[in-house]
């Protein structure tokens, strides 16, 4: 990347970073009404969304599309393997659609209702959503999905479905696992220094996935230690393979938490509910990303950190808006978005 491109990207990242909404601010939004939330978001980010967006462009899609547009601007100075890495990373958004489609079809939900769950990704979409919605049964949809760039992920999901039936959590986990493995593989094509920085940012995310799913597989689904370990994804920052293998052999959650390396042992001390652990782990992984974004070092990892933070912001806002639209109680919304009560 040329000196000019680096300077441009630095400036761009600084502007984007200044427009991210802090977690405390996001939590405050829970008490506001919908119009005020949109107005505040507009004030803080400079993006004014249309609450009365048409059916084709609801506010959920507007949030995602705006974020993707910003990501595309951000990654424009990159080329080759770096750009390919980012394009793959942004697919995370489409993965949400993939999950909604698989979940919906396997649960026998009407196409119209599934469609309402999907986010329109415009020209960035790879999934033939219209055709997928027109499928008559889950297997027809899987066959069609196996012709898309998500074939590998879908094959894993099919196997999980055939093995464990219609368990939506497991299907989601299988899809996430395959995505993380593929994403990690793409870091191998980056320059060593870049890959190292990126892995640091990704590490928190992978630790979160591995720890939470290890606990779920072992203690919610009662799977064997070996199988629980096998179903985990690429290792992250602190929880290496040896660590996870050791944890997989333990018999209860307390024992696992007590045996965790720092900082997870301290963070999760006294928490026994996996959903609560998820919230803590998520904010920890995002704090790693926030540190990386504000550290003036590697541009690639800063850009990646920004994508993670913005994605989390979009997810929070989407859940919040959905909750407000359905007129849920603020306490219920807090639970849904993972805010402290």
């Amino acid at each position, binding site marked *: 990347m040329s000196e000019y491109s680096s300077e441009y990207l630095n400036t761009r990242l600084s502007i984007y970073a200044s427009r991210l909404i802090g977690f405390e601010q996001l939590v405050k939004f829970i008490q506001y009404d919908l119009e005020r939330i949109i107005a505040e978001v507009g004030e803080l980010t400079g993006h004014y969304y249309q609450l009365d967006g048409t059916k084709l462009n609801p506010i959920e899609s507007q949030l995602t599309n705006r974020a993707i547009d910003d990501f595309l601007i951000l990654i424009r100075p990159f080329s080759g393997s770096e750009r390919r890495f980012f394009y793959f990373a942004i697919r995370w958004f489409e993965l949400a659609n993939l999950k909604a489609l698989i979940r919906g079809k396997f649960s026998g939900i009407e196409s119209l209702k599934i469609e309402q769950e999907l986010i329109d990704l415009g020209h960035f979409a790879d999934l033939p959503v219209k055709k997928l919605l027109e499928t008559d049964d889950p297997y027809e949809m899987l066959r069609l999905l196996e012709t898309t760039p998500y074939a590998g992920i879908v094959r894993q999901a099919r196997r999980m479905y055939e093995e464990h039936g219609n368990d939506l959590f497991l299907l989601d986990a299988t899809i996430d696992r395959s995505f993380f493995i593929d994403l990690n593989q793409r870091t191998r094509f980056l320059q060593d220094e870049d890959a190292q920085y990126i892995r640091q940012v990704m590490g928190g995310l992978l630790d979160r996935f591995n720890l939470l799913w290890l606990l779920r597989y072992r203690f919610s689904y009662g799977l064997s*230690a*070996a199988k629980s370990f*096998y179903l985990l994804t690429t290792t992250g920052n602190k929880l290496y393979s040896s660590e996870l*293998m050791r944890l997989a052999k333990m018999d209860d959650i307390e024992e696992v938490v007590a045996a965790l390396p720092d900082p997870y042992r301290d963070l999760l001390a006294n928490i026994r509910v996996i959903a609560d652990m998820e919230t803590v782990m998520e904010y920890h992984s995002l704090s790693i990303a926030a540190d990386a974004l504000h550290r003036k070092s590697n541009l690639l990892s800063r850009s990646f950190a920004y994508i993670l933070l913005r994605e989390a912001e979009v997810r929070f806002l989407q859940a919040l808006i959905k909750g407000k639209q359905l007129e849920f109680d603020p306490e219920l919304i807090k639970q849904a978005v993972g805010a402290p009560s």
Partner: protein
Amino acid sequence: MWQTPLAMEKVSLYMVDEDAQQAAMTLARMAVMHPLEAQTNDRGLQDYPAAPYFSVYHELNSRFGKIAAYLKAPINQAVAATGIVTLDELQSLDEQLKELWARVSELEEQTRRQNEKMIITRQLSSSLQKFASLDLDLSRLRRRGRFLRIAVGTVPAVNFDQLKRALSLTNFMINRFYSSEGIDHVVVFGSSQQQEDMHDVLDSADFRGLNVPQEFSGSPSQLQADLNRQIEQEIKALNELKDKLTELLSSHMPVLQNAHDLLLQAGPYASLATVLRGKGGLVFLQGWVPAQRDQEIRKELERDLKFPFHVEFSAPEQKDFDVVPSLLKKSWLLKPFQALVRNFGIPSYREVDPSGLFALSYILMFGMMFGDIGHGAVIVLASLLLWKRFPGVTIVGVLAGFSSIFFGFVYGSLFGYEHVVPPLWMSPMHDPIKILLVAVLWGAGFILIANLLAIRNYIASGLPEQALFSGKGVAGLCFYLAAINASYQLFANNRFSWLEGLLLLLPMAVILQFQWRQASGGLMERVLVVLIEGLEHIISNVSGTLSFLRVAAFSLNHVALAAAVFAIAGMMDALGHGITVVLGNIFIIVLEGAIVAIQCLRLEYYEGFSRFFSGKGKAFEPLKIET
């Protein structure tokens, strides 16, 4: 050459619900109406009466498409699609196709599984081949030992590392003995006591075990024969599935043919789902039709509709100009040029269709840049050979070829030879400055015409201020003429008086003043915008005109390339000379011909169209019966 899109009228049709489908069919048969989505609810017509019909039609169409993809023989297209299809008929047919598709989908799923099975058997066969050279009793692999459990098979290579670690938790070991195409061939062994956990993990890792039959106690080659038999059976099973599918579809051909015909007939009404508005049995339809066909439409509707209806036609108002579709006059000669114009954009309703001017100037410029009797003749002949497959290419090629021949006579050039045919005018190389001057004059003429067309388009679109004061309007035209005059005085008479200066400044002041009124923002921002746009206007006129120097440059280049070929040929013996001249000419025709074709297009798009043609029109897409 200056034709505009056909005059349009807005048609508003009020009718009773029972006649809506027939009206759609009548209009679709005539292919005269571009449907218009109703913009307001001021008529109180809030319902969409065709919506339920569309919903069933869409589902049926989608299922039919999915099934038709499996058909080997095409569906018979020759249908007189004029009847009316009821909603009940569509629904009944949809049920039949739903059932049929369920069976097709089931067979497809079985085929997929069978295919996967066969891939696994092939992988195992390949795995077994690695044992072929060993004198090993494979029955040992089947035998369940008291302490030791062994399994041989394949896993996807990406799963191997994680599997190895996971198996170590069950006290099992895994060893890779061969790797190919993303598949690892492995042997797994460990304590019999934990084999359940081991199987569980292996299943998750997509392990495919080599199954040694109970009765088997022989060498690898015997087991190989067994696997080969299995593969044959699997191929047979696959073929049976294919036959079943073919049989199933053949037995349902009448249903499919019926579905095809009904879909054709139901299409027009279904496609009006978002356009037709209604309330309490009254239906309203709006669209754009060619003005010249309004009486014909009225007559056809009177003949076909059973109940009274009201139809009115009205000319578009100025506020509608942006949404009125453009229907261009058809001309077989201009058709390929219209396609090239469409690449840039569709003429707006009130804009001049530039296809005629484009065709003429493109052909002339091509000839000027590629003037050679022989090369032109080759282009004509080569284009004629493409007539059946690419008629559009033939038309452009033949015209460009003849233009090339004409300019070949003007330059006196035949396959690069400059002294065989006496020139009607002169060879470009004899006076390059004259040729360059001609090219600049051609460019100036081209830009002047573009400017005049821009003024005409502004007036036709009801934008008189732009027509008078903008850079592309009369002020811009005056500035350009003043610039030509100033250049002439400067170069021909070595004079630039206050008069030339005044003639330049006056129109520029008008342009800047107009831009000042158009600009928004703060004072400094407006000053900057106006100054930059004024500067841009001057630069674009100068660079645009000079851009046409390439017309001369390529005519010189053509002669120079031929001279280079002859220079190389001159160094050869007689045979070598002949071969070099032939290959050199082919090279010139293919490479330079392609470059000249592209350069002409570039001049048309960037120096011509960008000055007068918005290309923001909407194509006229009539309601019609799809075939």
